[in-house]
């Protein structure tokens, strides 16, 4: 029984149990719990401040968890991080940084290259391949501030692709990109799905959710609903996610913050 359970768990790309995260003691996500089926394209949807980015970051141990457990292919993130690729938000970095597109993509290999060893031509070749896969190989030598928003997003995607991971976590890859880039990104996501890879994508545009994803997580500080898009992506659930503020939760967290300040 126990072995059957672990066998099932080790094929689940991402399982989250009872996850609560707090920034400066203000809870951002409460009691989040879900499993993601292998080989699926998962959309994470919710209003601003719903804790979508926080969820991804907490899953990767980038921010401390108040409680809860995360398992990636049946192990902790630390043990299995080679199998996870991350595409952070584009606004999160300084695009004036003195590097070119190829350098950024090569960063996806730093973990493999290892401490203190230099980047070799074979790594650069792998990075070039990833860049041509996202369709901007000719911009490899361009300084990153000279790239358009869509091209910057493609660079980030290439950096994740070059890792050749099994689970991809993407933070708003469609935010402020041109139509061509959006199309290209969706194509790559589908390609990855056909290779049996799983992607968890934070998404803003509700209209395209049924087109792009086959599994959806509706998040607003807690998981409102999760499951296959056909079953879960209903107007009732969307109302629950977006409709009104979560007055009770808000009040509780505000009260907690006031109490902490007075201490």
């Amino acid at each position: 029984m126990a072995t059957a359970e672990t066998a099932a768990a080790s094929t689940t790309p991402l399982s989250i149990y009872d996850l609560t995260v707090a920034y400066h003691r203000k809870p951002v996500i409460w009691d989040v719990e879900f499993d993601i089926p292998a080989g699926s394209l998962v959309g994470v949807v919710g209003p601003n401040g719903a804790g979508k980015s926080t969820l991804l970051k907490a899953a990767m141990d980038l921010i401390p968890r108040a409680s809860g457990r995360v398992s990636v292919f049946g192990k902790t993130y630390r043990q299995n991080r080679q199998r996870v690729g991350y595409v952070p938000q584009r606004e999160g970095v300084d695009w004036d940084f003195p590097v070119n597109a190829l350098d950024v993509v090569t960063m996806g290999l730093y973990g493999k290259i290892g401490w203190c060893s230099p980047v070799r031509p074979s790594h650069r070749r792998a990075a070039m391949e990833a860049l041509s896969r996202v369709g901007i190989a000719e911009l490899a030598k361009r300084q990153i501030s000279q790239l358009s928003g869509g091209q910057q997003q493609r660079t980030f995607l290439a950096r994740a692709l070059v890792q050749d991971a099994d689970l991809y976590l993407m933070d708003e890859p469609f935010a402020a990109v041109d139509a061509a880039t959006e199309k290209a990104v969706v194509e790559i996501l589908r390609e990855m799905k056909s290779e049996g890879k799983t992607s968890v994508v934070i998404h803003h545009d509700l209209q395209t959710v049924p087109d792009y994803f086959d599994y959806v997580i509706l998040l607003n500080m807690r998981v409102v609903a999760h499951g296959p898009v056909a079953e879960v992506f209903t107007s009732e659930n969307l109302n629950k996610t977006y409709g009104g503020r979560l007055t009770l939760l808000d009040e509780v967290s505000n009260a907690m913050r006031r109490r902490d300040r007075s201490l």
Partner: protein
Amino acid sequence: MIVWLLTCRCLLVLKMTCQAIIGCGFTLAESGLVSANSGFAIASSGLSKAGHLTLVWAALPLAQSESITDRRISMPSWEQWQRVLLMQDYNTRVVIFGTAMLGCAAGVVGCFTLLRKRALMGDALSHATLPGIALAFITANAMGWQERSLPWLLLGATVSGLVGVAAILAIRRLTHLKEDTALGIVLSVFFGCGIALMGVIQQMQTGHAAGLESFILGKTASMSANDAKLIAAAALIAIVICVLLFKELKLLCFDDGFAGSQGFNVLALDLVLMATVVLISIVGLQAVGLILMIALLIVPAAAARFWTEQMWEMLLIAAVLGLISGIVGAVASALFPRLPSGAMIVLTCAAFFLISMVFGTGSGVLVRTVRRMRLNRKVVRRHLLRAVFEALESEPVRTTAKGERKPKRTVSLDQILPMRSWSKPQLKRAAELAAREELITQVGEKLRFTRRGKLEAERLTREHRLWELYLITHADIAPSRVDREADRIEHVLEPDVVAELEEMLINSRQLVPESPHVIEASLSSEKAGTANASSDDVSREASP
């Protein structure tokens, strides 16, 4: 003569630095940090073979030539220039070597702190060292040790610097205050403590505290060979760390979130970076002083950023700028012993920064101005070509004096003047430029396309109208506003975007699609008198 001297000095400095580095390397390998002066012995013997000098061991030959009560800053004599520039004094060589190594390492380390946006942490850290120095002095005095033992003082500086950094982190973590507030508090309070303790030292009976204020403003003259070797060792360690961890630190500075997701320990990397800052600031205290140390960490790195868009190049340039600043500053300080060396070094850095800011080939002010002017010229040229094209388009035929109707080929300046918000001189200048590029020919007040100009104008007008169409059909902008919106963006359209627009919008086989709004030229006859920069908007809004 001066040019010759400068060249000579540069050559010597290069030679000296190379030999000294090699020499120092040997010393370190053989007998560790606290060995005798063999590193410098090797370096200087190399130089004496070159036949330039005799060893002078006096600590302060230049300062001694002036009386103690004489406070004037006088122009050094020719002999003094010669002695310093040819580095005839052993002491001068020691100091130059020390400050050069310091500048070099500070430049390298500074690049990373600058890109990590933690530049001011070094400032707080160096200010926080003062109480440590004072306390170390007092304890050494109380224990009856040699008071000016540099390693002991620097140990005190390190400890209190680290306490300062820890205090910043603690304030930020435990309270609601932001980092800048925490930095300000720690910086000033620790510095205040240090100054108070210095006061105590001045009162002490045995207090030979005279050397201590050199830690505040920097005094290279008191640097011994051992001190210089200490600086060189610390600088080498910092540079080696930065080179070995180049890729990791680059990732940390660019995207720490991604670094964390890749399994790099962000905190540990930050600590390593901070440790190199501590190392460099502490050994630099004596040369530049704790107030100005921050300049050496920031300014060369910031100056280097103007020259390149590649990180390793930035590191290299910052290292060289720091190195030269160290050398020039030390030389200046040797020539004018009354001026604190820290200030001299920092002023040299500042000069480099100004030069880089203006002339930097990567993003210097001059380069950017030229780029902007080029873009402006390109935009004006496009406007002119399109205006001529549209004027011809709206009045395709003319009637000659004999009453014949012929295709119109020329446009007068007055006809296109009201089409845009340009003044007549601006328009004339644009026409001259276009004529120089052989896009139009100018006969008096009349403009006429060349073959190439016509093709170019067709292409431009087509792009412009495609973009207008896109704005109207997909971005819900009123047709009367479209011209201006389109103007703002079309100059950055890339070929693939144009291709995409064509695919989306063109259903006719026309080469140049029709304008989706009324072209100003048709208004020209009645509006000609009022057309100027301010009425441009009005006339556009007024168009039906």
